[in-house]
């Protein structure tokens, strides 16, 4: 299929319009239309990745509006570029989107009655925006798509309750500041280079030796800080926990795995493609103090996660810690660190999806996600809990889940680049995750209360009545997406070499230090 890359956004865009119109016909149509258009988009994503892998220079360039490079200078029209990195991430975005859309039916009907059409419409546009962010090769178009993703995000969170609306207001302010800083940075880039095309900017920087220019330095700082706010890097994370905890369940399932991860992708794209390796790592001072900021971020986020008594809120702080991992992987300035960072985007999206889908089911069945309300859940819904634990094990980094392999590359990167502080903090954070999840596993399997007092009467007794532990599994429409997500975590873990090969092919074009001295 020639235009597969265009179908990636055409399917959800038109799908969302038809879903919005379905309220005039029959509101029951909203769900099937959403699932169908997401399935179409996912197929287009697979096709795009296949084409990118097959093409000789491992990328597809798609000139929207027909302003092709052979007839017109680069940058006249808007370019969509799917190199291996972009098509991998976009496939993850679409896959998560498809799984969450299938999963959403019961939650959406219950939590946002009579607003299903608008809810699904916003959801599809959210996925359109995120997929577009991954594919676009134009710095200003990236801003427009960030706005699409952000505005739909505000709507999707605030639709829930009044508390959610209050949390959204914080998110709105911080998100707008982040986007404005990014836009200001793009303005500075444009005044200096005269083009908005990412590859075009890089060419102008190289041809004119703009690496020492004060304007470019400030543009880099503005864009960098804007993206750090958007991805909830530690000091700027304040909007995230409240927004994700008060949002409707499906919203947090969709936003938590994707939004922060896509922003890390944008950072990698800016560092590698727009500014270039030489400018980003050797002409700015970021590279000397970013690893230390990452250390602070991971430690603080890990402690904050440790102090939560509610699963959803704990997971929200885990995301903040994971963001620290990935930012660190980029800024230790090392080939393996960057592989780890990109791989961790993929695996973190999958495992966060697992955890949030599991939490959604717990919320559906138990009406609470507080630590005290989850006793005996394993005997009640074993399959859900297996899916949830696979996500948890992957966050800890147990083989053969994909979290193990991405962390392996991050640690390798920290070692060969000599950033021992990053290595130590990764180990520390892993220990914290072990505590977090085994505390949960203990609560779910054993009969102990807050102070460690035994509630049951000896071996195998959960201290619950027969009623409370009866087998009562989640509805299949929720369980199957969770199990698919859990299977993906394991499959990506087992076939990690395939993924890493693609990332390595992508990174070969960039001159990154491997840290190993060959004589």
């Amino acid at each position, binding site marked *: 299929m020639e*235009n597969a890359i*265009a179908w990636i956004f*055409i399917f959800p*865009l*038109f799908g969302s*319009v038809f879903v*919005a*119109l379905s*309220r*005039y016909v029959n509101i029951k149509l909203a769900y099937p239309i959403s699932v169908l258009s997401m399935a179409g988009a996912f197929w287009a994503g697979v096709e795009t990745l296949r084409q990118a892998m097959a093409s000789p220079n491992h990328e597809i360039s*798609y*000139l*929207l*509006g*027909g*302003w092709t490079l052979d007839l*017109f*200078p*680069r*940058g*006249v*029209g*808007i370019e969509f570029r799917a190199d291996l990195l972009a098509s991998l991430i976009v496939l993850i975005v679409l896959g998560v989107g498809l799984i969450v859309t299938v999963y959403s039916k019961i939650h959406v009907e219950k939590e946002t009655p009579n*607003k299903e059409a*608008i809810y699904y419409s*916003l959801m599809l*546009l959210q996925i359109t925006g995120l997929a577009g962010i991954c594919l676009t090769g134009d710095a*200003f*178009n990236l801003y*427009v*798509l960030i*706005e*699409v993703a952000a*505005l*739909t995000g*505000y*709507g999707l969170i*605030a*639709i829930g309750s*009044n508390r959610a*609306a209050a949390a959204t207001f914080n998110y709105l302010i911080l998100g707008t500041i982040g986007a404005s800083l990014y836009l*200001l940075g793009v303005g*500075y880039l*444009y*005044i*200096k*280079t*005269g*083009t908005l*095309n990412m590859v*075009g900017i890089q060419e*102008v920087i190289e041809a*004119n030796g*703009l690496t020492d220019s*004060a*304007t*470019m330095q*400030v*543009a880099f700082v*503005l864009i960098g800080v804007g993206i750090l706010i958007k991805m909830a890097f530690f000091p700027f994370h304040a909007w995230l926990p409240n927004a994700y905890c008060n949002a409707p369940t499906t919203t947090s399932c969709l936003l938590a795995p994707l939004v922060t991860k896509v922003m890390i992708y944008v950072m990698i794209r800016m560092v590698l493609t727009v500014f270039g390796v030489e400018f980003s790592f050797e002409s700015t001072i970021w590279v000397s103090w970013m690893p230390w900021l990452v250390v602070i971020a991971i430690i603080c986020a890990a402690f904050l996660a440790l102090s939560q008594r509610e699963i959803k809120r704990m997971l929200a702080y885990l995301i903040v810690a994971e963001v620290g991992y990935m930012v660190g992987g980029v800024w230790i300035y090392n080939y393996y660190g960057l592989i780890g960072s990109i791989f961790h985007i993929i695996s973190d999206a999958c495992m966060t999806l697992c955890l949030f889908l599991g939490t959604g089911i717990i919320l559906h069945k138990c009406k609470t996600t507080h630590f005290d309300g989850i006793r005996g859940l394993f005997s009640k819904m074993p399959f859900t809990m297996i899916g949830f634990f696979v996500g948890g094990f992957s966050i800890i980094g147990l083989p053969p889940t994909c979290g193990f392999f991405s962390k392996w590359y991050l640690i390798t990167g920290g070692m060969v680049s000599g950033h021992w502080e990053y290595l130590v903090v990764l180990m520390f954070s892993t220990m914290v995750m072990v505590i977090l999840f085994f505390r949960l596993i203990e609560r779910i399997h054993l009969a102990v209360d807050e102070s460690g007092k035994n509630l049951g009467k000896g071996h195998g007794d959960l201290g619950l009545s027969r009623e409370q532990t009866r087998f009562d599994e989640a509805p299949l429409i929720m369980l199957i997406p969770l199990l698919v997500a859990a299977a993906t975590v394991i499959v990506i873990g087992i076939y990690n070499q395939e993924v890493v090969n693609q990332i390595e092919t992508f990174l070969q074009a960039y001159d990154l230090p491997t840290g190993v001295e060959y004589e």
Partner: protein
Amino acid sequence: MKFFSLIPVIVIGGLLLWAGQDFPKWGDVESPASKSPVSSHFIANTGVDTEVPNMVTAVLADYRGFDTMFETVVVFIAGMAVIAILRGSSVGRPRRKDHEVEAEPDLIVTNTVRLIVPVLQIFAFYVLAHGHVSPGGGFQGGVVMGASFILIALSWDLEKAMSRFPIERCLFVAAMGIVLYGGIGLLSMMLGGEFLDYAELDKILPVSREMARYHAMLGVEIGVGFTVASIMFVLYANLASEGRLKQGL
């Protein structure tokens, strides 16, 4: 607290000023931005490529038409998000007293508006259709059109404005605007070009490739106008009445 918030303001302000020292000189032909092929292509070839005299319209609706499509989508999202948040959220909550104004529509105001509104609406069409030649286009025309309904709501009441432009139909019209914009893009893709490659429309229109771009630009501007006009009114009606769609300001 105010003092602490002053610190980042000063830091960022200083940073922005410091960056200014390195800007290209005014009208400097040697700066990379002036040598860039992009702006010079727009200036020299807009008429050749698209037959549109107004360069801004051509850049907006054709060269960077994909941006504009998503800007329209952003407007659409804003309308939907406001409906999603406000509609039904204040059911059962007592209405604040200070919003209630029991007054007959003012004679002078209503008669003035009676005179203005038809002119405003015709002007909106003019701005929209004339965007190829003079400043204007879908966003501006749509805003003027939406403002005319807001003016009716302000001088009479919301019911009167909604009897002219039923609020249930607003979202439909807005969605149609996006379908029109995206549909033109999709049609040109189906005819063998890239998405939004209007030139391919010459296969179904009896005109040259350049004129096909010209006409398609009018089509997408109409789509933008649909969306902007109806969402303007949706935003006003929902915000002014806290989502009740009754009485309003």
